[in-house]
């Protein structure tokens, strides 16, 4: 039975004392529940892989503690941590057949031959490679998806306490990726091992993880379920990283217990944001620049002007099946980005290049403090 995994103020500096020290992790603290499938999500360089490798012991953290089941494992060398890990490249041994690849961890532990055979057979059954095990080819004789399964089997065969998956799907093609992520979830739930899944793909993270942590610049920005992160992102960064968020530049004109009052830049539109969607820091003074964030499906594009609409121009119309995406540019002072607006169907009589008007569905906007690093 797996236990919980806790990070307490974990920091990591690469090249400490050198000319260009890089702070990869800054005081990271959170807990992963026993048996949980936990996703670390973030853009490249955010520290997610460093945190994973630190958990494995492949990197030595420069500050803080990592605890497993309440016990400090920070200074245990990696080969004594009893962790299973699946690498992005799979890292299968080309000089061994798949049986020996999977058996490797058992051989290291000097398990008796009988046990090796039994455990390899069991785990190959779990990952769905019973037939391949009979032929027992070398890894190069398998397809990408099968190699992936061997890599998972190899990590699971010695009943690790923790399973680490480092971008495990990055080397597979798109269709297989969607299939394997469901497989990984099935296998993880069957073994119930506390698991960390690292990815930069938000769709993958949302589909796989029980909970997700969004990281940026060595900091955990937000932790929650997919639903929480999508519907209640607490920063402009998370909002735009988990799905798409359109931002209007605005100014804070007032705040109260019921929410915030904001005024769009260059437009005479005032909007009240309910307290549940107000993510501004408490210290922010009226008049401060803020961002009003709206999901693509919460905006409406129309040919008719209304008092609270913003004028723009349709650049591209894409029919994407369940909905139609309108890319609309507005006054750059109001938003430097092109808006993405998802309508349930084609808007009658609207063509690319047309002048249009954008409105926010009532009560669907959130407000955020401007984010310096949003362009990352």
């Amino acid at each position, binding site marked *: 039975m797996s236990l919980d995994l806790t990070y307490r103020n974990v920091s990591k500096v690469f090249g400490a004392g050198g000319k260009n020290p890089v702070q990869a992790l800054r005081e990271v603290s959170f807990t992963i529940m026993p048996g949980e499938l936990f996703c670390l999500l973030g853009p490249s360089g955010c520290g997610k892989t460093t945190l994973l490798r630190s958990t*494995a012991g*492949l990197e030595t953290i420069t500050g803080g503690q990592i605890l*497993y089941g309440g*016990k*400090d*494992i920070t*200074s*245990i*060398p*990696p*080969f*004594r*941590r*009893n*962790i*299973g*890990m699946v*690498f*992005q*490249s799979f*890292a299968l*041994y*080309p*000089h061994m057949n798949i049986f020996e690849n999977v058996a*490797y*961890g058992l051989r*290291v*532990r000097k398990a008796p031959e009988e046990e090796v055979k039994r455990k390899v057979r069991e785990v190959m059954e779990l990952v769905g490679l019973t037939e391949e095990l009979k032929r027992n080819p070398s890894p190069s004789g398998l397809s990408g998806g099968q190699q992936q399964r061997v890599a998972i089997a*190899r*990590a699971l065969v*010695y*009943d*690790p*306490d923790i399973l*680490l998956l480092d971008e495990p799907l990055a080397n597979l093609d798109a269709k297989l990726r969607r299939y394997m992520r469901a497989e990984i979830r099935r296998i993880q739930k069957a073994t119930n091992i506390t698991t960390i899944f690292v990815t930069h793909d938000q769709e993958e993270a949302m589909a796989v993880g029980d909970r997700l942590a969004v990281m940026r610049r060595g900091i955990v920005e937000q932790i929650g379920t997919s639903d929480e992160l999508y519907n209640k992102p607490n920063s402009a960064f998370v909002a735009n990283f988990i799905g798409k968020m359109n931002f209007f530049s605005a100014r804070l004109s007032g705040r109260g217990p019921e929410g915030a009052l904001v005024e769009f830049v260059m437009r005479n539109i005032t909007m009240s944001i309910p307290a549940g969607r107000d993510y501004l820091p408490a210290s922010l003074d009226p008049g401060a620049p803020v961002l009003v964030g709206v999901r693509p499906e919460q905006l409406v594009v129309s040919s008719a002007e209304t008092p609270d609409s913003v004028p723009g121009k349709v650049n591209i119309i894409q029919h994407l099946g369940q909905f139609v995406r309108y890319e609309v540019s507005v006054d750059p002072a109001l938003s430097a980005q092109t808006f993405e607006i998802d309508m349930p169907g084609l808007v009658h009589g609207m063509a690319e290049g047309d002048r249009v008007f954008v409105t926010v569905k009532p009560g669907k906007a959130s407000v955020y403090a401007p984010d310096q690093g949003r362009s990352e």
Partner: protein
Amino acid sequence: MKRQNLDASIDIDGGKGLKKFLQKDLTPYLVFLIPMAFLCIFLFWPLVNTFFRAFMKSGNKFNLGALGFSGFEKFLTSSLYQRSLKNSFIVGISVTGWSLLIGVPMGYFVARVKMAGKPLMLSLGILPVIMPSFIGAFSWIILLGRQGVARHYINLVLEPLGITLPSIYGMFGMIFCMTMTYYPFVFLLSHGAFSSANALLEDAGMLMGASRWRIFKTITFPLVIPSIGAAALLVFIRSIGNFGIPAVIGGDQYVLPTLIYFRVNGFWDLNGASSIAVVNVIITGFVLWLQKYVVSRREYETISASRVEIRQHEHPLIRVIATVYCLLVLFISLTPQIVIIVMSFFEKWQGLFPEGFTLANYLRIPRVTSRELWNSLYLSSIATLLTAILGSIIAYITERRRPKGAGILDMAVMAPFILPGTVVSVALLSAFSGKNWISIGGTYTIIIIAYMVRRTPYVYRSVAASLTQLNPSLEEASTIAGAHWIYTFRRVSVPLILPGIISGSILTFSTLLQELSTTILLYSSQTRTVPILIYGSVADGQLGEASALSVLLLLVVFVIVYFTNKSQGKGLSSGLKMG
């Protein structure tokens, strides 16, 4: 099982401080010390020693008070020194120039013209470099020497035109022999560049309306310049460091390596030899720097992921010209090997045909040379084994562990690659012969050490190359699975870099068997090797015996290389590219 594992380690980790330090894996640091110590004692110290000796008067003991420039003054006063220096330059530059002229077209033809027998041409092309160069020189004497058969007949043809082919002895012979020995570097490297260039780039040029010649001039050729530059550098370094060819056919024309030999062998003047060695190294270093400066700014990525077939010339005339050209060059460069084989079965060869068929040359070998055969095998095997271990460890450490100073280690290991063999010998002699604290002059040990110092780059490069292709996550996966550093090294790293170790070792062994330039300054009557014996026989005019021994040597080297190439693909030809 799993819980116990973790709990046990946590208990061990209860105490901090000393326990924590002891738990750190110290093995890599200990292993790191061995190669470091070897390099310090047998490379740095001898080189430093040589450097200081270079500034001392001949005959002086190692003594800081006696520093001066007398060793170098000879380059201003002695006409022999001046001529040697000039000759070295002329030889280096001419051999490089001719090798480019001969090798680049050949590389282009084999890569870009539709021809039969290309794999064979590539295999034959590599032979001159892996065969002992002084044997080539010696066989050209048979053909083009004073009584040379071929020379006699060529001159009959040339006489009406008022020109005569000079005797092979002297500058003409050195340049000719070295070109025939070293052009394969240019041929093979430029062939590699011409055939790996991205065909799409040329297709794009063609679609934009460029003519074939224009495409060659503006796209193809600029992209292969770095490779050709590297080959030119390799040829230059090898030719100004070559001892065997000038020693056999230089006649009264000395070059720096033979001058070093002359100082040591004739006068036992290590200080004077050191001065010459320093000058030799400065020239090499300067050229190396020049090449880095000129070529490294023109490095392009010529390998692309998409594999598009390169367009080949199919015009019959071009095909005929290319085939004839390649066969002619191959024939001339392989003539020495053929001549030696023929010669070894005859008593003498003075007319058009050799005379007096005999097997006596071979039958004499076991009786006369058993000691030398044994020495050659013994020295080469031991040195190869030790070099393989040393080179692999250094490669593993610099590539994987990346300790501080890995860059210096890399440079130090590669340094002997550009040092002429005679220079390495002088350095070792000046540090370890006579009354030094380690005195191993004339022993097997000094030869083995010299071999190791000179050949470690071969194994090192070869292993480092396989290591860079070995994804570190393969080793990490093993660590994560619970394996200790040593277990991982044994079960994962070594099996996967074994091909690199083997091809580096084979290259080392086959070149050590024919080693002349280092051994000639270090051998004693006890430690004489086969190449030394051949060299001696040639000097004594016993061509039959020398031929038989050479054939034996050629055969051994050829068999080794052939089977390696067969089992490892192009392991060896890529091994030769180092530099």
